[in-house]
């Protein structure tokens, strides 16, 4: 609670030029997106969206289907660059126009449509695109497997997974989700984006995940949690941003709002 008070004092409300209201960061945030617009032809997926992620905070991105949450996450992940707008990382203007650029900015993402390859083993999925290799590019499979065991054992405990060589295609939805989470957690940088991470998890696995998000925060890692489950969001998040039709319609720190008010804003929009 102390963290959230430090970052979101009531005096810090609503910059004058903020079109949709909301909170302003104190000091330079880890990441700030200003006046972001994303168009697909005539369809506007993000409309003058302002968003920031502070240091060691957990932000909830809420809203109904089609609100633009996943588009915003994909924009920050570098796989869906904005049509216009500015992005600042640690106060410095940055182009997040590729996955590599996003990684360099310290962002790691867990996607709603789990980014795993069914025909590959758990280990190969965890290290996909970031393999541990020799200088000539040959895989250090032994090392990769050792690390995979550590990841699977320590990040998010996944029931039923006892062999990192198992093909991902034979895992349950929850197990796949957990592997994706384990991968993101291992490669975590400063910001972890979680797009509907608990949608396929069991109650126990969800508890583990949310606990882990809290642990990451205490280690100084910020997270953005995109979820339909307001209860989960309220459990772990310091700040809540409600989106509708591609823009921000409500924003509040945890101490300034309630789960009822959040529900009301999500439903009303």
């Amino acid at each position, binding site marked *: 609670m102390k963290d959230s008070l430090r970052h979101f004092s009531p005096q810090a409300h609503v910059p004058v030029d903020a079109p949709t209201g909301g909170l302003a960061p104190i000091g330079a945030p880890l990441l700030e997106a200003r006046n972001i617009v994303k168009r697909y032809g005539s369809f506007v997926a993000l409309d003058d969206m302002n968003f920031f992620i502070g240091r060691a905070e957990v932000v909830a991105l809420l809203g109904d289907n089609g609100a633009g949450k996943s588009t915003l996450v994909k924009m920050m992940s570098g796989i869906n660059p904005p049509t216009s707008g500015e992005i600042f990382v640690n106060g410095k203007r940055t182009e997040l126009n590729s996955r590599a650029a996003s990684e360099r900015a310290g962002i790691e993402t867990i996607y709603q449509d789990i*980014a795993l390859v069914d025909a*590959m083993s758990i280990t190969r999925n965890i290290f996909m695109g970031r393999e541990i290799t020799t200088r000539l590019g040959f895989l250090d499979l032994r090392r990769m497997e050792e690390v995979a065991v550590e990841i699977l054992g320590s990040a998010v405990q996944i029931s039923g997974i006892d062999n990192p060589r198992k093909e991902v295609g034979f895992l349950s939805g929850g197990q796949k989700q957990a592997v994706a989470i384990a991968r993101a957690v291992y490669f975590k940088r400063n910001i972890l984006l979680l797009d509907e991470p608990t949608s396929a998890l069991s109650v126990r696995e969800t508890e583990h995940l949310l606990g882990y998000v809290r642990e990451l925060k205490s280690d100084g890692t910020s997270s953005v949690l995109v979820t339909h489950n307001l209860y989960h969001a309220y459990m772990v998040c310091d700040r809540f941003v409600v989106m509708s039709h591609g823009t921000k319609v409500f924003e509040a720190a945890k101490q300034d709002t309630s789960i009822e008010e959040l529900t009301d804003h999500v439903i009303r929009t």
Partner: protein
Amino acid sequence: MSLSHAEHIRQAVAAHNARPIPVKLADWVRTSPEGGIAVLFMVVQIACIAGGLLFPDSFRYLLQANIAVTLKSIAPLGLMALGVGVLMIAGEYDLSVGALYSFLSIVAATVANSLNGDIGGDHPSWAAPFIGLALALVLGGLIGCVHSAITLRFNIPSFITTLGGMLLWKGATLLYHGASSLRFKPSEPFATIFGGEYGVIHASIVWFAIFAVAFYLLLHRHRLGNHFYAVGGNRNAAVAIGIKPNRTKTIAFAIAGFMAAFSGVVAATRVGSIQPGGGLGMELQAIAACVIGGAALTGGRGSILGVVLGTALVFTIQDILLLLRAPGFYFDMFVGTLIVVAVIMNTAIRRSRA
């Protein structure tokens, strides 16, 4: 708590590694894409060896000459299938490899012959056939890149691009050389390197073995191989994780073109002449060998061992039919049936695992 979970996984992995060999083999058959076909291959080989022993006069399977001919025949299709298999794993097809096999071997031969690379000429140039081969390989890779660029730039199925490519390169072969056969008797040491023989072992099968090992290392032990599986298995996942699918697929297309060229030149060296239409139909046999070996038509699944076994099984069947003096059309019928049986087996094995 979390430490014990890691320890639990570690113990499970150790137990998995300590399984008795029969259990490991059974698990391999159940879990690997080539497991089913490996069993079928072994069964066919045992049956053939038994047949060869029981009826040595009427079924000469174990005759040295038969073994030598079969080993010689496998290599061209096997080399082509390696390239086609990598491309299929990356989620694309190349139907033009058969036409490229003819076209590029003719290019290599005409270049070699024009540079006095024919062994029958006066003071033949040792370098000429190598120059011809190098040019054919580079062209094969470049043509693969062109197929890739068209497929990915216009977002059309590679099946269509390379179907067009097949007809284009078939026509180009006739335009470039005409319909007559072309002599290709390269000078030494090229002839020995690519066409020499030692007992039943022909140079072409050695090249097939070398490339099979190299492709195994590339596909199963190298970062690029991991990316082939990723872009073929789930393109969106590969993009999300930062793999560049277009670059990866272009490399796979180039490999397929390269291997078609190499396969054509190796075959031409063995036979001593090139028929302009000689490669037509091989593209489907190469795809069949990959599918029989466990490669998925949807991409992301397959193995080099599967490609090798698939090719070997196709040629074993051809050999059996030849030894039984069956008419040629039986070969297509058997291979067709084998494709369907292999896919049914692989699907059944995967379902049983799930």
